[in-house]
C-alpha cells in the first residue's frame, strides 16, 4: 500500500498539484483541529469499515481455512499461499489473464488513439463520433454480454453472417476454446475503447496550438506534424492510459463470466473469476483470500514499476 503511494501521486499530481492547503490565520488552533476531524469523520468511518478493515481481515482470512458456511477458521499459516503458488488452475487463470490483458490493451490503446486523432481534426459530426465511440462504455456488462452472445451465435449470429459473406467457414465463437478468448477481447474492445478515446481527446486538446502553427510555417504537412508533434506530445498520456488499461484488463470478470453463461473454461478463466469460484462456488474463503492477495501484489508491482519509469523519464529531462 505505502509502496504504491508514489505511483498514484506521480500519475495525478503533476506540477500543478503541489500547492498545499493554505491555512487560515485566524481562529483558535484547537477548534480548527476539531472542525477538521468533524469534516473527515463520515468519510473516515466508511473508509475504515469498507476498505481498511476488509483489507486487514482479508489478510487474516488468507492464513486460515475459513469456509463460507462458517466451518473451519483454524490458522493454517502459509498453506493457502503455498497451495496457490503450486495450483495449476491458479497459474492457468494467471496465464489467461495476462493473455487477455495483452490482447486487449494493444487495440484498446491504438484504436482509441486513432479515434481521438481523427475526431480532433475537427471534422463535422462531432457529437455523432463521440456518441458512437463512447456510448458502449455506458452500457452494463449484462447488456453488452447479451448483445455479443447474440452476434456470436454460431448458427444465426451476425458475426458468422459476415464470415459467410466473405466465403469463410462459420466459427463457434464462444464455444470453441481456441477462439472464445478472442471473442471476449472483441466485445471488450467495442465496450470500453470509448473511455480511452475520451482521455486521448483531452490530452490532444492540451497540445499547444503554436507548435502546429510553427510547423506549418516551416512547411510541415499533416503527416509530418502528426509524427513529430502529436505523437511525442502524447507520450505521457499514452503511458498513463496504457497503465490504466492494463490494470482494468487484469480485472477481467463481468463480461467473460456472462458471455460464457457462467461456465468456467480453462481457456478463459481469469484470476478474478478464480477468486469468485473458490470463494463463492467452492466455499473456500481462506484460499480465495490468498489468491486475492497474490493478485493484489501483482497490481502493486505494476504500479511501482510505472512510478519508477515515470521518475526515470523526469530525471532524463
Amino acid at each position, binding site marked *: 500500500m505505502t509502496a504504491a503511494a508514489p505511483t498514484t501521486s506521480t500519475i495525478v499530481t503533476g506540477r500543478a498539484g503541489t500547492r498545499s492547503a493554505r491555512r487560515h490565520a485566524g481562529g483558535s488552533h484547537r477548534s*480548527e483541529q476539531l472542525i477538521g476531524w468533524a469534516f473527515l469523520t463520515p468519510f473516515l468511518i466508511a473508509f475504515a469499515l469498507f476498505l481498511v478493515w476488509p483489507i486487514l481481515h482479508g489478510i487474516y482470512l488468507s492464513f486460515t481455512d475459513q469456509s463460507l458456511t462458517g466451518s473451519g477458521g483454524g490458522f493454517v499459516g502459509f498453506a493457502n499461499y503455498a497451495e496457490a503458488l503450486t495450483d495449476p488452475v491458479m497459474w492457468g487463470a494467471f496465464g489467461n489473464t495476462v493473455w487477455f490483458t495483452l490482447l486487449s490493451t494493444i487495440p484498446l490503446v491504438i484504436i482509441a488513439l486513432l479515434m481521438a486523432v481523427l475526431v480532433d481534426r475537427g471534422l463535422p459530426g462531432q457529437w455523432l463520433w463521440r456518441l458512437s465511440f*463512447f456510448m458502449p462504455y455506458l452500457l*452494463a456488462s449484462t447488456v453488452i454480454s*447479451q448483445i455479443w452472445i447474440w452476434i456470436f451465435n454460431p448458427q444465426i449470429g451476425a458475426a458468422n453472417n459476415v464470415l459467410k459473406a466473405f466465403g469463410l467457414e462459420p466459427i463457434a465463437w464462444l464455444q470453441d476454446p481456441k477462439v472464445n478468448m478472442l471473442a471476449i477481447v472483441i466485445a471488450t474492445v467495442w465496450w470500453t475503447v470509448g473511455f480511452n478515446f475520451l482521455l486521448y481527446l483531452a*490530452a490532444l486538446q492540451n497540445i499547444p496550438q503554436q507548435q502546429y502553427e510553427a510547423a506549418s510555417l516551416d512547411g510541415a504537412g499533416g503527416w509530418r506534424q502528426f509524427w513529430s508533434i502529436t505523437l511525442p506530445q502524447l507520450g505521457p498520456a499514452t503511458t498513463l492510459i496504457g497503465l490504466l488499461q492494463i490494470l482494468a484488463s487484469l480485472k477481467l470478470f463481468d463480461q467473460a463470466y456472462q458471455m460464457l453463461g457462467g461456465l468456467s473454461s480453462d481457456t478463459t478463466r481469469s484470476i478474478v473469476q478464480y*477468486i469468485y469460484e473458490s470463494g463463492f462456488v467452492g466455499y473456500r474463503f481462506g484460499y480465495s483470500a490468498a489468491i486475492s492477495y497474490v493478485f493484489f501484489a501483482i497490481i502493486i508491482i505494476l504500479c511501482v514499476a510505472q512510478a519508477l519509469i515515470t521518475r526515470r523519464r523526469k530525471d532524463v529531462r
Partner: protein
Amino acid sequence: MTTATRTLVAPGAPRARSRRPIGRRFTVLTVLAFAVLLILAIGWLLPFLWAIATAFKTETDAASGDPGWIGASGPTVQAFTAILSQGNVYVWAWNSLWTATAVTVITVTISALAAYAFSRLDFRGRKWLFVVIIAAIVVPPQVLIIPLFYEMLAFNLVDTHWGLILPQVVAPAMVFILKRFFDAIPIELEDAARVDGASRFRVFWSIVLPLSRPILASVAIFVFIGAWNNFLWPFLVINDTSLMTLPVGLQTVISAYGVQYAQVMAQAVLAALPLIIVFLIFQKQIVKGVATSGFGGQ
C-alpha cells in the same frame, strides 16, 4: 508528464487551444480521415443497431437466421410488451435507480467534506492521512469481495440494499479530485465570509459548494454510472429476486429464457435506454467528467 497529466486531471483547466479548423484546403488527408472515421463509427454503432433491429422482430423471425434488418412478418413491439408485462423489470429498474442514487449522494457528500478538510483545514495527521487515502486508489475492489462479504454477513446486511450500497461509497479518487478543485478556489472569497463571522461549515455550504457545481456534477455522474452498471458486488450480495438491480436481474431472466432472442435484445435495449438518454442530456459534463475523473474510475 506535466502537460498531459494536467489535462487528464486538472478540473476546469482552460482548453489550451480551440479545435483546429479543418484544413482550408480540401486535402486527400481530410477525405481519408473522414472515411476512416465513418467506418469506425459504423463499426461501433452496428452491434447496437443490430440489437435494436432484433428487438423489433418476432421470435420466429429472430430465430430464423434471416440476416435482414426487418423480419419477414414486419416490425413489432411484441418482445417489449412481453418483457414489460413481467413486473420484475420495473422493480429492478427502481432498485437500480434508488441504490445508484444513494451511492452517488453518500459518496459525493462524504468525499466533498473530506476533500474540504484536506484542502483548507489544519489538523494533526492531515498529511499522512491524505497519503494513505491516495494510496488506497490502487486497491482493486475485486480483491475485497471475500472479506467484504464476510463483513456483510456479520452486519446482517447480506441480501439487503444497504449491504449493496455501503461498500460502494468509498471513493478515494473522488476525494483527490475534489481536493484539487477546492485548492484552486481563491481563499480570499472564504476569508471575507470568515471575517463576517461565518462558520467553517457555512463557508463550505454557501461559498465552496456553489462554486464547485461543475466538478460535483462530473463526479456525481461518474459515480452514478459506475453504481448503475456495477455487476460483481450486487451479484454476490443479493439473492432475493425482488431486491436485484437491473444488470443482475436481467442476467437471471436471460439464463432462464436464453433462446428468446428478440426478448433478450428488447431487455438489453430497455436497460441501455436510461443511460443513453442521460448521455445525450449531459454529454458535455460526461466528456469532461471522464477527462477529470477518468484515472480513478476503475
